[in-house]
């Protein structure tokens, strides 16, 4: 039964099989190309001597406020990407040259734009982003309040049903 279905579909779709084989070939080719690509590697971020614990703690905190630009939804502190390593090193060099956190952020912002800040700044063009959810929440609360008030009123005003109606209703429910 099973074999029969298989043979019939196989015979009916020679063209489809050819398409599939081509897909496979291009997939294998793609994998080979990627493997060939990986023979070349990025040069690693140069090693740095260990830093003082207080500087390390300060920079760790600062890195959580900055975005790793390669892996867009991670902070610099979490990211293993090569550029993130370079950026961490850059931040350290800036800190060691005596720059404070705000100056370091400005330095990176001038090069990478607001996007490098993990938390977007509150500006007129980001108001929708910052306050939109609260406006929606408020609107939802108002609608809920109005709807519940109305249904509350109608429930309270619902007239008691007569015995006759009750009998009809239970009859309907039994069916």
């Amino acid at each position, binding site marked *: 039964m099973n074999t029969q279905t298989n043979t019939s579909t196989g015979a009916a779709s020679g063209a489809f099989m050819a398409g599939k084989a081509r897909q496979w070939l291009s997939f294998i080719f793609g994998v080979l190309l990627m493997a060939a690509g990986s023979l070349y590697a990025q*040069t690693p971020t140069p090693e740095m001597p260990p830093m003082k614990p207080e500087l390390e703690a300060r920079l760790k905190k600062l890195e959580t406020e900055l975005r790793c630009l390669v892996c867009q939804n991670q902070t610099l502190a979490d990211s293993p990407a090569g550029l993130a390593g370079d950026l961490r090193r850059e931040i350290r060099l800036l800190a060691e040259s005596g720059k404070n956190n705000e100056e370091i952020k400005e330095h990176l912002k001038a090069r990478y734009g607001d996007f490098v800040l993990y938390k977007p700044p509150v500006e007129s063009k980001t108001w929708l982003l910052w306050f939109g959810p609260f406006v929606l929440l408020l609107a939802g609360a108002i609608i809920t309040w109005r709807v519940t008030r109305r249904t509350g009123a109608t429930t309270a005003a619902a007239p008691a049903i007569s015995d006759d109606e009750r009998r009809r209703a239970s009859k309907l429910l039994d069916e």
Partner: protein
Amino acid sequence: MSETRNNNLARAWRFALPLAIFFGLVWFMWKGLSLNPRDLPSALLNKPVPAFSLPQLHDNTKMLTGADMKGKVWLLNVWGSWCVSCRYEHPVLNALARKGVVPIVGFNWKDKPEDAKGWLVKFGDPYAFSVSDLEGRVAIDLGVYGAPETFIIDKAGMIRYKHTGPISEELMNETLVPLIQSLSKA
């Protein structure tokens, strides 16, 4: 009479408002589909190219600085032999070099010089100059976050255009070349 009109109006609102909200959401989501999250606006657009001094790939005793390119319209292409999309882009750069409309400076980013040189022998060398940034510090000054990236710089040393990702033949013919030609006339 006026009460029914009010009722009708209220009913119309009850339909129209959710419908309007629904279409508003659809519009935002539809737009979200066509946005490219990698296509960030460059913070350096219409700003001077950051000062740099980097060793040349083929002779690291010679340096190339931004000042060396002053007075010319030039194209800076960030690449690495480890970068798969760069290989995909490379034929387009070779074609652009053959047109001879602009000197292309190859910015070899975080790459081993031997790998880079071998790569250029294998796939062709479209670069008028090649510089290597082993540590990636100049790349940070340029706001580079992925290869390939392409900058067009005018005669005064201002960045006039930036593209992140491989250049297609279409982009070269329809955007880059016309822009280079108009900047060269200026």
